[in-house]
Every structure is written in C-alpha cells, then in structure tokens.
C-alpha cells in the first residue's frame, strides 16, 4: 500500500507552535516543487550525478513527511543514479507525485 505523507514530525518539532508550522509549510510549498523540477530537468538532460544531488535533498523531505519507505528508496535511488542506474525512476517519481499532491492540498 502506498504511503501517505503526514505532518507528524513537523508537529513534534513545533510542539504547538502554529507560527512555525505555517512558516514550514510555506517554505516546503516553494522548495519542494522547485527541487522536483530541478530533478526532472537534470535527469532528462542525462545529468545523473547532478540529479542524484537533488534526490539527496528531496529524501530529507520524504523523511520529514513521514515517508519512511520513500526515504529508503531515495537512499538507494541516489546511489543508483551516481552509478548511472535509473531503474527506480518510476517508483521514485510516484512518491514525488504523492508529495506534490499533499503539498498542494495543504496550500
């Protein structure tokens, strides 16, 4: 079953600080789509090592949003990309789509 992003970690960090929660959401709403776009552009232009660097940043966000399976996949995919292997592309991009939907929903 596909994982569903959540804000449990952010609420744990915030400890009831709603201002921080709002600030965090406004940041991720800008940062995540940009990183997703950067990843796609780099991958499509064949710059796999550079795209791995973006996957590295994205994987932190998957961890933040409680996607432990997606986080583990990103670790593997990052290493695979460095070796020129894109086998996990579709699975990873499925996770990215779920995160994008979630981020847009909370906008």
């Amino acid at each position: 079953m596909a994982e569903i992003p959540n804000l449990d970690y952010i609420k744990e960090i915030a400890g009831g600080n709603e201002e921080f929660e709002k600030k965090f959401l406004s940041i991720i709403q800008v940062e995540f789509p940009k990183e997703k776009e950067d990843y796609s552009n780099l991958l499509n232009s064949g710059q796999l090592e550079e795209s791995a660097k973006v996957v590295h940043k994205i994987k932190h966000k998957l961890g933040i949003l409680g996607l432990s399976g997606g986080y583990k996949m990103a670790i593997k995919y990052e290493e695979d990309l460095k070796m020129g292997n894109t086998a996990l592309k579709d699975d990873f991009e499925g996770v990215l789509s779920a995160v994008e939907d979630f981020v847009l929903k909370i906008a």
Partner: protein
Amino acid sequence: MHEVKCIIVDDEATARAIMEELCGSFPELEVVEQFPNALEALKFLNQNEVDVIFLDIHMPLLTGIDFVQTVKDPPKVVFTTSDKEFAIEAFEYDFIVDYLVKPVRPARFQKTILKLKSAFAPVLVGDGDGALAIDQQKDEDLYINIDRRLIKLKMGEILMIEAKGDYIDIKTTTNEYRVHSTLKKIKEKLPELLFMQIHRSFIINFTKIIDIQDNSVLIERSVIPISRSQRPNLMQRLNLL
C-alpha cells in the same frame, strides 16, 4: 550553559527552519544568522565570532567538510546531514561535537545540547574566580605510593579513578596506576571543581568528558557508567556550568 551564539548553514530552507525551531527550544542557544551556502558563512565568520555552527555536509560550491578545513580556529561544529557515511571522517576533528542525521528528532537534539554543554564545560567553568580556581586545581599535585615509590601526578592529567576491590586504578592521560586505597580516601584528596563521583566505582575528571549518553559518559575511549542516583547531580552540575 551560558548563552551560546550559533549559525546554521544548510542549502535547504526547510532544514534551516527545522534547526532554528529546535534551537529555539533551548534559551541558551542564540541563532545569530543562517546561510544557504558555506561561502556566505565563511564571509560572516571572517568578521564575526560564533560558538557553534550547525553545518550541513552536502552543499553546492563548498561542502561542509571542505568548509571546516577552510575556517581558521573553527568554533564547535555540529554536522547535520542526511548521510551516515561521513560520521567517521567528521569525528577526525576535535571541534566536531556531534553528527546529526536528518530529519533530526527533538530527543536526539537534546543529546546534542548535552554534548555542547560538556564541550563548553572547561571554558564555561572559566568565568571569573572559577577560572582561576580550576586552573590552579589542575596544577595541584597528587602523590601516589606504589611499591614504596612516590609518584607525582598532576590533578589535571587524571582522567578517572576506578575502584577495584582493595585497590583503585588511576588512569591518567599517559599512564594507568594501581594503588592500594579506596575511592573514599582518594576522593578526600581530589579538588571538587575537577572531580565528581558518578558511580559507586568511578570518580571522573569532569573537564575530560567528551560525550554524555543516557547512562554513561565518554572520557577518551572509556565509557563510564552513571549511577541512577548520581545522574541528577551530574546534570545539575552541567546546568550550573
């Protein structure tokens, strides 16, 4: 711990926001600036002094590892990264206090604060008269009797003392000595500012602590247990520093 000035260096805005919020839970920490790359942080450090850098490793232009090698007289550094692979390399430097894997949990960050308190302890003890007192105590001598030979030890060189039946083992920065005595007897000879009994079998040199975990402290490569009854005293002493 007195007020500690820190900066956050991370190319991810989300990571910076989280670290700022984590730091905000500890009034001792003052986040004075945040930077999205190491070069900007480097410029800042050329004109400003800070006590701690929360530093990402994977960053464009200059990595966190390259950055710490570039900074002259680096302050304490806490690495924050999504990778575990650099942990060994990171701890090659004395000024690296901790290595946090992101996303950082509040409970884990609390341990970082304890490590920072410990790292700053010798300096923070050095406020006003206390500084003089502890420096003087480090230079005091202790004579131990081994096989009718008196050996002089500097208090500041003693790392820990362990009870071993009718004997005690005194471990210094260079040697280890077994002496026919008890912890109670030697405790009376040791300066209180430097030493603390943290377990029925262990007295430690407080200024030599590298790391504090839930039930143990690390001094050099030795892990020393903290007894449940002594833990509050140790924590209180950290806070007093």
